[in-house]
């Protein structure tokens, strides 16, 4: 912008200088024309008056006749001075005083030597020019010494060149205004443009700041094909990852909190009974034998409950941390072992128990895996009435081996199924507590299944029964065996 305005001003200056030059040349040629005109007229007058030399007054008379017939540009001032700088003639009331003439002749530098001007009386004429401000007008003054009738004079013409200055000044002013307004317009355009260009960045900044302060659901809404679009896409991917992680952490923390809450509740319940009854035994006078027996029994039961809880809890916490003994086990062996243990229990509960399995080998920690199956069968017994059958089936399904524990017992609602594997969740609290349950069994089973890389699935319908399916990968060494064994 600055460069443009500078160039503009320089061009104007140049233009101005050129026009001044032109004007000067014009003035000089006019001046020389006048000089030759004067010389001619003087010669003519001399011939007319038949004298050898005209006197000064005669010369002035000739001049008068030349310049008073107003053929000359009225803006041109003509003056004739003698060699003593005295005004001999001027055509317009504006007088060029001696001081100006002095300055013209004395101080001004010679700018032009008009050679080869054939019309001039002398071959080598020297012209002096100067621009002066006279009566608030700019005037170009041309002065030259002339010799008329063997007398030395100074001939001065002066042209008004104010219009050049005025136009120059107005152009300069115009240029300045143009430059300023253009600068302003440019500035505004640049500002809006940069604002527009930076808006996505501001958006990006705002969103990242929001994410940084913990609002992980924020996403950047820039979908352009440029680097910004790419950046915001990556930022969104990052935000997704962060949100996912945070959610996971939060879930873990929430789960832990729920777990601790439940645990503290599960611990406080037996503790309340224990503490209460112990306190009563301690402070009550004349406690009857019957009361003492009753209360101490409750204390014992509740303390046992606490013991079970802490044992199960330890199991749940240390599972997978203890040394597990993974071996390839024949499923037929496993099933017969389970049947051996469970048969008498089922019989005493009057529950028909069927076991059947395909034979193959699976890679498990035998004791841990058995404890899971026992736990699930125990649940099935608890859910079943007398004579309601329970079925344990093992079957091959492609490269997996499925354990199915089926009962026709009380079943569960959809809501319960989703929560039943959570620690401390009990479908029927009073019933579970009476049975000594802590609500950790299924949570434990899920953990055991996880350790074996097995899937754990519960299907149940209220009053129709429950089927638990555990699907474990078949050990590669045992694939070739394929006979079926029914029990």
């Amino acid at each position: 912008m600055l460069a443009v305005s500078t160039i503009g001003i320089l061009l104007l200056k140049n233009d101005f200088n050129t026009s001044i030059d032109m004007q000067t040349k014009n003035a000089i040629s006019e001046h020389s024309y006048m000089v030759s005109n004067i010389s001619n007229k003087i010669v003519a007058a001399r011939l007319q008056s038949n004298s050898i030399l005209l006197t000064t007054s005669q010369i002035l008379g000739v001049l008068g006749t030349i310049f008073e017939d107003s053929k000359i540009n009225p803006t041109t001032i003509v003056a004739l001075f003698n060699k003593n700088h005295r005004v001999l003639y001027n055509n317009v009331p504006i007088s060029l005083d001696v001081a100006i003439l002095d300055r013209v002749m004395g101080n001004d530098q010679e700018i032009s030597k008009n050679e080869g001007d054939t019309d001039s009386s002398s071959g080598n004429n020297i012209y002096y020019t100067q621009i002066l401000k006279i009566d608030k007008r700019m005037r170009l003054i041309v002065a030259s010494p002339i010799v008329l009738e063997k007398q030395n004079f100074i001939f001065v013409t002066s042209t008004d060149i104010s219009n050049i200055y005025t136009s120059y000044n107005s152009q300069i002013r115009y240029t300045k205004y143009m430059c300023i307004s253009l600068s302003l317009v440019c500035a505004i355009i640049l500002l809006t443009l940069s604002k527009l260009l930076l808006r996505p960045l501001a958006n990006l900044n705002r969103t990242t700041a929001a994410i940084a302060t913990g609002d992980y659901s924020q996403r950047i809404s820039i979908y352009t094909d440029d680097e910004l679009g790419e950046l915001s896409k990556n930022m969104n991917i990052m935000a997704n990852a962060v949100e996912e992680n945070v959610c996971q952490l939060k879930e873990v923390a929430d789960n832990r909190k729920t777990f601790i809450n439940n645990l503290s509740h599960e611990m406080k319940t037996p503790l309340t009974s224990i503490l209460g009854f112990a306190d009563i035994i301690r402070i009550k006078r004349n406690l009857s034998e019957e009361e003492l027996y009753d209360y101490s029994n409750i204390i014992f039961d509740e303390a046992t409950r606490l013991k079970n809880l802490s044992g199960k809890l330890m199991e749940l916490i240390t599972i997978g941390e203890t040394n597990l003994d993974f071996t390839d086990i024949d499923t037929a062996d496993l099933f017969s072992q389970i049947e051996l243990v469970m048969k008498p229990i089922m019989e005493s509960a009057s529950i028909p128990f069927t076991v059947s399995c395909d034979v193959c080998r699976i890679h498990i920690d035998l004791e841990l895996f058995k404890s899971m199956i026992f736990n699930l069968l125990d649940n099935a017994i608890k859910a079943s009435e007398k004579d309601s059958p329970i079925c344990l089936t093992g079957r091959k399904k492609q490269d997996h081996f499925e354990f199915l524990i089926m009962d026709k017992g009380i079943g569960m609602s959809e809501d319960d199924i989703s929560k039943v594997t959570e620690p401390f969740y009990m479908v029927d609290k009073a019933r579970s507590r009476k049975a000594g349950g802590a609500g950790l069994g299924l949570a434990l089973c899920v953990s055991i299944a996880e350790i074996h890389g097995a899937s754990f699935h519960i299907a149940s319908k209220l009053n129709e029964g429950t089927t638990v399916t555990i699907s474990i990968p078949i050990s590669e060494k045992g694939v070739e065996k394929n006979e079926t064994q029914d029990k």
Partner: protein
Amino acid sequence: MIKILIVEDDENIAKMIRATVTMGGYDSEICSDGPSGLEQMNSGNYDLILLDIMLPGMDGFEVISKRTNDTPVIFITAKQDVLDKVSGLKLGAEDYIVKPFETVELLARIEVVLRRYNKKDHILQYKDITINTDEHTCRQNHQDINLTPKEFDLIVFFIQHQDVAISRSRLLSAIWGYYFEGESRTVDIHIQQLRKKLSLKNYLITIPKLGYRLNKIN
């Protein structure tokens, strides 16, 4: 006789609370779930309700907000959350006891609430001692006995918890306040004064390693 309703789903805890209030000389009934607890509560047959928060069917907060009479309620819960406490008290409960608790603490809280509701007789009688809790007077054999405020509170506390051994720390918190930074010596000195002033040497007895007990007169 004052009748208390216990709404508590854990069988043993309910039994324990019942044994406790029986020790305090109150009659009691047990409800083991929310809806039946609410029903019993609305029957208006009780002077005080001891209400658990985690109940099957309907939780304690719901029960208390649905009650139709203003029988005083004390929450008994394993939840230690301050928010639970606040919302419990906001719903109009008189007090809030966190499990596990001491027997005498429960009795003392029940005592306070019943007194607030004027369900307690303001005349206490023990042997030849008559105490008027309204007038703050203690008479023995028709003679005024001059007791200091703490001595007065102590004998009232003992008469209210006869046949129950009360630890020094329990006495400290009950009579001197929970934040009293006193020593158990303070209790011992006051007990000695009480025994002397009211000739209770053979009745207000020391229980080794525990505290004191006022024996009931048969």
